[in-house]
């Protein structure tokens, strides 16, 4: 739950943020250009010291959706128990956002996972490699236009026979 004071301070600092409520949680849609600044403001001014998760949603073929990807940052403050969801919409070909590893160390693997699954590039990430899929994998499997059963990558291995081993 977000405190009213936090909400007011946020709207005073960033009047362009679109705020909505859902089941007691506060959601904010940030602009891509101002994402890093907004997140930094939450960390430094309001003490949101815990980055719970970074994840992404692919809105391809989703009803009433205007944008392709929604990148979601879940923040929490261990001091005041406040929580907030910050979302930024991304469209091809501009699939890059600044990395927040400099703000929260824990963002390192989360950003690698989002990069691995959705192909979102985090500028300034210290080590942006795939984290779950093999390095030679080329697709981004959680995108909605990637088939569930893959494109045959899982069958693409040498076969060992009895007499070869």
């Amino acid at each position, binding site marked *: 739950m977000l405190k009213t004071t936090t909400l007011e301070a946020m709207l005073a600092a960033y009047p362009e943020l679109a705020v909505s409520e859902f089941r007691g949680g506060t959601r904010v849609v940030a602009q891509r250009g101002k994402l890093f600044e907004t997140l930094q403001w939450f960390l430094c001014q309001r003490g949101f010291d815990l980055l719970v998760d970074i994840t992404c949603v692919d809105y391809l073929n989703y009803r009433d959706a205007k944008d392709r990807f929604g990148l979601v940052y879940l923040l929490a403050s261990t001091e005041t128990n406040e929580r907030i969801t910050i979302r930024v919409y991304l469209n091809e070909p501009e699939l890059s956002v600044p990395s927040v590893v400099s703000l929260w160390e824990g963002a390192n693997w989360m950003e690698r996972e989002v990069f691995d699954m959705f192909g979102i590039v985090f500028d300034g990430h210290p080590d942006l490699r795939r984290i*779950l*899929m*093999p390095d030679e*994998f080329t697709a981004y*499997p959680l995108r909605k236009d*990637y*088939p*569930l*059963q*893959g*494109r045959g*990558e*899982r*069958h693409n*291995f*040498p*076969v*060992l*026979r*009895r*007499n*070869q*081993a």
Partner: protein
Amino acid sequence: MALELPENVVVSKLDSLANWCRKNSLWPMPFATACCGIELMATGASKHDLARFGAEVFRFSPRQCDLMIVAGRVVMKMLPVLQRIWQQMHEPKWCISMGACASTGGVFDTYSVVQGIDRFIPVDMYIPGCPPRPEQLIQAIIDLQDKIQNEGTITGEEFELKSRQATKRALIELPVIQTPVHLLR
């Protein structure tokens, strides 16, 4: 030639003696990647007691093992590891594919899960179930023991070689003897 043998001496073939030794001292390599691994552990534990079948010595080094038990799903990133471990095991060696996932991919028909390890490494025995109960694994080991006793490894490569040489040598060295018809059964 008649041999006078004492009662406690049995004549056998070296092959079946070797197979008999092999089948009763299987050293499993537990390749347990998922929930089936829990049943594998239960099989080795005291209640089900795999030691009754001489297969209780689980080794975590492939160089000391001759039975690979793949228990659980294998994903794309794990498959090269599986193949490497299989290659590191010494002949003669056998493989049990335990559970639906290892045998077919199970319910995980997705981009990253290998749809059955038998596509990429040889498998001697499949165990159905999700997960198979320890009794099923024990049954598979008993069946595998029968198989080892009768066939050696799955293709019997080492025996094949020997028998191939044997027929060759027989052709070269020995005269062909016609068996009298009345002796054929």
